[in-house]
């Protein structure tokens, strides 16, 4: 059998269980694909020995008929997840050489479910970025191109390595994390599916922290069914994360009926932005029509505080980041600057952090420091938290009025060229997250699925937003939309 690496999780699982293929064969196919894809710069720490060891163990379990949900399935793991004995540095130079002595809960859950790790995936430094251009490992390249134009495009960020690797069939699926859109925006740019679950579904323990009240892990996969399978394996209560929800995790895959008759889909008028490309507008209208044809009721809704989500986010996220990143002091792990004679501990901190953090991380840490500093705490931080409460209430009001899910575009544009935003104001880059960031602020589940191509042949995504803890229902609505959209395009292999 050829091209095993191109399989979905569901197909590979079924073939493994039927004894048609082995995990070792599947894993070797992926490792070959990874080796041949250096040009994408998606995988940054390869773990072929670990992968084959895990694959052999999975084959034993499969032969014994003891195959859990992810048994033998090869994955890529975002560099933000601490993986025992394997470099985990959040794509930052300040964590050069860091090898955790422990395993993150989410990666442990996946391993317990039988998954195989191929290696660690590139990302924006500390998950701060929307184009994967802030990584200490260098840019990730999107496997998609504008027709025959060889200009390298961004896979989005911060989970850019995950998006690129899944789109290019280097792995069957990957983990991502999402603080303001870092799963959903790259998924849209790379023509794959990505879900950010409700805040508290996935344990944050062992995931290098960016903004703790917003961070959530989730799967990035080739199909909605694969997202359902992998999300279930990632979720679950964890005593080591005090915000982890102690509620049962349903069988998400069993909830995929494709039946959305009678469901109420909200279309928020505030997401119709000035200057939005006509193709995105059209995609949104098409998606709305597809859900209507499938029997859903379409309702115009209003989320009045949408406009203030990005500015609130750019107070809250940097504030939390400035606290979380205070731990990188050159004492316990990672980089320490070379000191000159007479340098004391303050110089050690300042030089270490100046050398170890890239410009975007430094910018956000300092903005966070400023908005939390004496005299500005109320004016910036507390005001942003009040606005956040209003944004959350906007969603609660529409759900209370009977809306089951909300349909929006995933991104305001298709993938752009690497370097194209280089001279732009940082605020211009932040606008990438305009449709996704509200979901993090409100703690809701959101999924991005590929729904069409633009005139240049690049994928475009739609986002569905669901009620808290209703990932199963959300995945089912996404499944109906996926069936109707029939997106099957793949990038032409050039790497």
């Amino acid at each position: 059998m050829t091209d095993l690496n191109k399989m979905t999780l569901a197909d590979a699982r079924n073939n493994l269980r039927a004894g048609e293929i082995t995990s070792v064969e599947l894993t070797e196919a992926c490792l070959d694909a990874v080796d041949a894809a250096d040009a994408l710069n998606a995988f940054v720490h390869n773990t072929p020995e670990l992968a084959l060891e895990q694959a052999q163990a999975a084959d034993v379990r499969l032969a014994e008929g003891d195959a859990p949900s992810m048994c033998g399935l090869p994955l890529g793991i975002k560099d933000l997840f601490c993986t025992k004995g394997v470099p985990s540095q959040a794509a930052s130079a300040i964590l050069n050489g860091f090898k955790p002595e422990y395993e993150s809960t989410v990666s442990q859950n996946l391993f317990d479910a039988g998954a195989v790790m191929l290696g660690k995936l590139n990302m924006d430094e500390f998950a701060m970025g929307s184009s994967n251009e802030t990584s200490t490992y260098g840019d990730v390249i999107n496997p998609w191109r504008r027709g025959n134009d060889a200009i390298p495009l961004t896979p989005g960020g911060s989970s850019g390595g995950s998006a690129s690797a899944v789109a290019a069939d280097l792995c069957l699926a990957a983990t991502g994390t999402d603080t303001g859109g870092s799963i959903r925006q790259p998924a849209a740019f790379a023509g794959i599916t990505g879900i950010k679950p409700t805040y508290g579904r996935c344990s944050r323990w062992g995931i290098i922290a960016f903004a703790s009240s917003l961070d959530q892990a989730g799967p990035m996969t080739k199909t909605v069914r694969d997202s359902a399978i992998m999300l279930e394996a990632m979720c679950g209560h964890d005593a080591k994360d005090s915000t982890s929800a102690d509620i049962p995790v349903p069988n998400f895959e069993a909830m995929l009926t494709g039946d959305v008759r009678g469901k109420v889909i909200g279309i928020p008028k505030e997401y119709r932005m000035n200057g939005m490309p006509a193709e995105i507008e059209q995609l949104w209208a098409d998606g709305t029509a597809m859900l209507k044809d499938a029997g859903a009721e379409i309702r115009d809704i209003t989320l009045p505080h949408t406009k203030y989500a990005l500015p609130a986010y750019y107070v809250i996220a940097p504030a939390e980041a400035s606290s979380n990143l205070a731990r990188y002091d050159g004492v316990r792990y990672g980089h320490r600057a070379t000191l000159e004679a007479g340098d004391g501990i303050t110089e050690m901190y300042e030089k270490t952090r100046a050398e170890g953090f890239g410009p975007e991380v430094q910018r956000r840490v300092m903005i966070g420091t400023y908005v939390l500093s004496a005299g500005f705490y109320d004016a910036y931080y507390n005001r942003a938290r009040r606005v956040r409460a209003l944004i959350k209430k906007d969603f609660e009001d529409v759900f209370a009025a009977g809306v089951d899910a909300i349909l929006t575009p995933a991104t305001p544009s298709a993938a752009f060229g690497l370097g194209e935003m280089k001279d732009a104001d940082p605020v211009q880059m932040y606008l990438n997250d305009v449709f996704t960031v509200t979901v993090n602020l409100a703690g809701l589940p959101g999924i991005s699925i590929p729904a069409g191509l633009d005139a240049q042949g690049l994928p475009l995504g739609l986002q569905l937003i669901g009620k808290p803890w209703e990932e199963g229902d959300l995945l089912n609505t996404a499944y109906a939309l996926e069936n109707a959209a029939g997106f099957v395009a793949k990038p032409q292999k050039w790497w």
Partner: protein
Amino acid sequence: MSIDQNTAAKVAKLARIKVEDDALPALAQEFNNILGFIEQLNEVDVEGVEPMTSVTPMRLKRREDVVTDGGMADTVMSNAPDAREGFFAVPKVVE
């Protein structure tokens, strides 16, 4: 609210990030752009709205106040840039 070079230097100091003097004007300008964007929040009527502390209404779990882990000094220090005799080593902090 406009940030001048002195304020930018003060923020860098608070954040413990060394910024060279010649980089301060550009840094101050970046802060002003971002803070200008954030200023939009002043348009929102937040009278009577409590600052949000938790995305889901939940009581934090409690557990017995007992030691659950430990006794692994070597493991804890395995990634330290400079560890000696069971301690993290840093430049002299007390004269």
